[in-house]
């Protein structure tokens, strides 16, 4: 997987400079006029040197840098300039992921035959963006998204920086840890521990990082080592797909909500399949009898239109709510839609085949060693505070067929016919 990151630093400022070249070399503050109430949206490096920062009030900015040129924020103009930039990049690859204003990830694997070596590819990308938008551009090319972005940020104006596969860690090791996507608290703790560079951080043992900084630290540790498996999510082409179901009588049974949520998600997935799309985000919204709404979202590890993955995410979301009242409406939404990559469909469902193989293997084990030689784990409550209440172990026992059916008037349902639930309580 090869990623290119295309960056126009200080994008709004460059758009303003493009329209008024006299701003070149001057201190510029974008956000409004100094007497207006508002905050600084963007600053030029010249104003930055005077102490002006993004987010501070315009009045403060004027006090710090009275000679600066103050301009109003023209977000519509910046958005259309960014759209021009995206259109200039589209001929290279269909997998384009906008990253803020002025940054774009491109999946550029397998383009050597068309553009030659990576340096040449980077030059072609830069020329295309410059030719279309007349904006200065930096390009970073590497094996992961994070390294590619840092390569673009650390390059000089107009430079193309290519990080060869396997050299990511060496490239990153002297750079400050503040470039890693970590929170303020983690950054402060790293500072206290005297860890300043990514090289120092990446040389720590993973167990220590996990114990000290948790999952956030582990992710940052992998990035500092140049390991980044995240993929480019194709550009969103349409808004989220969503469906709502209104209950005639408000319900409070979880099973009913699960069934309705599943049906809605399957209907939405059908729409996605028809358009060849995948989604990166799943959301469930409940409307209570009182009129209040509660919403939960989950991000998929990678964009997908797989029924099993989406169904599981929806099921987990429905069970994660803290139900305050009876539910009068349920809405399922699939967001971050993108065009899916083609893949070979399986003639047979691999999941069914796998299940059959497991069943056959279990039957053989039971025949050989008896029914009590293994247990099957079943999830009970994902959010239970005690670990032992999150699941139950099921003892495999006699199959259902061993319980002869009684006559209609005598018939009872053998609830624990196949499995006996062993609860850890």
């Amino acid at each position, binding site marked *: 997987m090869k990623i290119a990151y295309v960056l126009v630093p200080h994008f709004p400022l460059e758009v303003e400079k493009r329209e008024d070249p006299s701003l070149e070399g001057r201190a510029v503050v974008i956000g409004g006029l100094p007497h207006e109430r508002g905050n600084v949206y963007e600053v030029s490096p010249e104003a930055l040197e005077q102490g002006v920062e993004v987010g501070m009030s315009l009045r403060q900015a004027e006090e710090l840098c009275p000679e600066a040129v103050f301009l109003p924020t023209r977000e519509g103009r910046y958005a259309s300039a960014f759209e021009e930039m995206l259109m200039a990049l589209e001929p290279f690859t269909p997998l384009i992921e906008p990253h803020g204003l002025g940054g774009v990830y491109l999946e550029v694997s397998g383009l050597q035959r068309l553009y030659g070596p990576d340096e040449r590819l980077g030059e072609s990308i830069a020329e295309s963006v410059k030719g279309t938008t007349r904006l200065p551009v930096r390009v970073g090319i590497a094996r992961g998204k994070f390294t590619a972005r840092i390569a673009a940020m650390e390059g000089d104006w107009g430079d193309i920086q290519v990080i060869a596969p396997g050299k990511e860690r060496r490239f990153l090791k002297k750079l400050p840890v503040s470039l890693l996507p970590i929170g303020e608290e983690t950054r402060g703790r790293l500072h206290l521990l005297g860890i300043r560079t990514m090289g120092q951080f990446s040389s720590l043992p993973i*167990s*220590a990082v*996990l*114990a*000290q900084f*948790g999952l956030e630290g582990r992710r940052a540790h992998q990035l500092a080592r140049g390991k980044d498996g995240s993929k480019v999510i194709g550009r969103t082409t349409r808004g989220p797909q969503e469906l709502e179901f209104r209950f005639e009588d408000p319900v409070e049974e979880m099973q009913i909500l699960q069934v309705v949520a599943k049906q809605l998600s399957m209907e939405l997935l059908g729409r996605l399949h028809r358009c060849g799309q995948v989604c990166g985000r799943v959301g469930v919204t409940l409307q209570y009898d009182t009129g209040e709404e509660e919403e939960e979202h989950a991000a998929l590890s990678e964009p997908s239109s797989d029924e099993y993955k989406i169904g599981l995410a929806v099921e987990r979301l429905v069970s994660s709510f803290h139900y305050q009242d009876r539910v009068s409406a349920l809405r399922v939404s699939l967001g971050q839609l993108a065009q899916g990559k083609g893949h070979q469909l399986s003639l047979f469902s691999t999941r069914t085949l796998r299940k059959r193989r497991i069943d056959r293997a279990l039957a053989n084990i039971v025949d050989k060693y008896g029914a009590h030689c293994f247990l099957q784990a079943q999830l009970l409550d994902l959010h239970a*505070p*005690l*670990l*032992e209440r999150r699941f139950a*172990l099921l003892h495999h026992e006699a199959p259902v067929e061993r319980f002869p059916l009684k006559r209609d008037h005598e018939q009872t349902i053998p609830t624990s016919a196949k499995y006996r639930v062993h609860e*850890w309580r």
Partner: protein
Amino acid sequence: MSRLYQPAQSIESTSGDRGQPLSFEWRGEVHRVLHLGNRWRVHLDWWRVEIWREYFQVEAHTGFTCVIYRDLLTQEWYLERVYD
């Protein structure tokens, strides 16, 4: 991957002045606590059979990483999860 012991394994442990484990013995080996990760309490079912525990995610000097807890009702220590 981690291995969950159910029921949790009883262990001998020494604790510091703030209740944190300093060392513990498991399967004949004494593990000195090097790092304390997460620390949390669970208080449940006080109206039924009360459960009151204080959990610690610990890394020992031997590299052994696990989750142990102290039953705050009986002051006994247990090992519940071992990380690979």
